[in-house]
C-alpha cells in the first residue's frame, strides 16, 4: 500500500519489482502508466502543469487504495502521481495492483486509475497555441468510475 505524490519522475521497473519482491503468493501484477500526450483533442500541446491539493490529495489516494483492497484480494497496491510542469512523453501517474489471481489484479488496477481520475484532487493546465487552458472533466471518466460504483451498490444490496 504505497502512495507517492511527487514532482520527480519515477522508475517504473524498480517500483513494480519492489511491489512483489519476496512475496511468492503473487500470481499477477497489473499496472497502468499515464503519459502526457502531445495533443489535446485536435490541438497540439507544448506542455502541461499539474496542480494538486497537498494533504487532501494524499488522503484521497489512501482512501482509493483502501477501497480497492476492500473490494479485491490484493496483496499490494501502488499509486505514484506527479505534479508540476510536464512535457509530452513524460510519465504522469503509475498505478499497480498485485494479487494471487489475474482478474483481481486487473480489476484492482483499473479501479485505482478510474477512481483516481474522478476523486483525487489534481488539475491539468495545458499549454496550447491559444494559451493556458484548464482541462475540463470528461464525461467518459465519470462513466468509467460509475461502473465501479454500480458494482459496489450491487455488493451492498447483496449483503
Amino acid at each position: 500500500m504505497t502512495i507517492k505524490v511527487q514532482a520527480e519522475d519515477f522508475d517504473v521497473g524498480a517500483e513494480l519489482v519492489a511491489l512483489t519482491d519476496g512475496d511468492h503468493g503473487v500470481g499477477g501484477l497489473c499496472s497502468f502508466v499515464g503519459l502526457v500526450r502531445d495533443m489535446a483533442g485536435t490541438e497540439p500541446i507544448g506542455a502541461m502543469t499539474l496542480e494538486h491539493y497537498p494533504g487532501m490529495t494524499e488522503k484521497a489516494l489512501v482512501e482509493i487504495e483502501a477501497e480497492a483492497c476492500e473490494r479485491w484480494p490484493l496483496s499490494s497496491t501502488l499509486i505514484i502521481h506527479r505534479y508540476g510542469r510536464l512535457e509530452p512523453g513524460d510519465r504522469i501517474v503509475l498505478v499497480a495492483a498485485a494479487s494471487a489471481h489475474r482478474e483481481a489484479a486487473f480489476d484492482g488496477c483499473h479501479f485505482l486509475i478510474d477512481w483516481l481520475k474522478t476523486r483525487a484532487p489534481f488539475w491539468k493546465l495545458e499549454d496550447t497555441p491559444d494559451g493556458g487552458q484548464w482541462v475540463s472533466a470528461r464525461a467518459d471518466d465519470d462513466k468509467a468510475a460509475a461502473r465501479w460504483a454500480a458494482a459496489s451498490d450491487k455488493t451492498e444490496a447483496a449483503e
Partner: protein
Amino acid sequence: MKLLYFAWVREKTGIGEETITMPEGVTTVEDLVSWMITRGGGFEAAFADKSTVRVAVNQEYAKIDWPVTDDDEIAFFPPVTGG
C-alpha cells in the same frame, strides 16, 4: 476558517489561500458560497456557475448542506482532472 482555492477557481478569485473569521449567519457550505458571491469581483465570477465548483471541508468532499465551523479548512476547486 482557512479557505483554499485551486485551479481556475484560484485564478478567478486571485488568491490561493486566506484565513477569515466565519461570516455571520453562515452555518453550511451553501451559506458560505452565497456569502462568497456577495464579495463581488473575482469571487462572484468564480462562483457564477455553482455547479462547476467542488467543495472539500477538512480535506473531505462535502455536499452543499455540510455544516461548517470557524476551525474548518474549506477548499473550492473545479472537478478533478488528474491521472
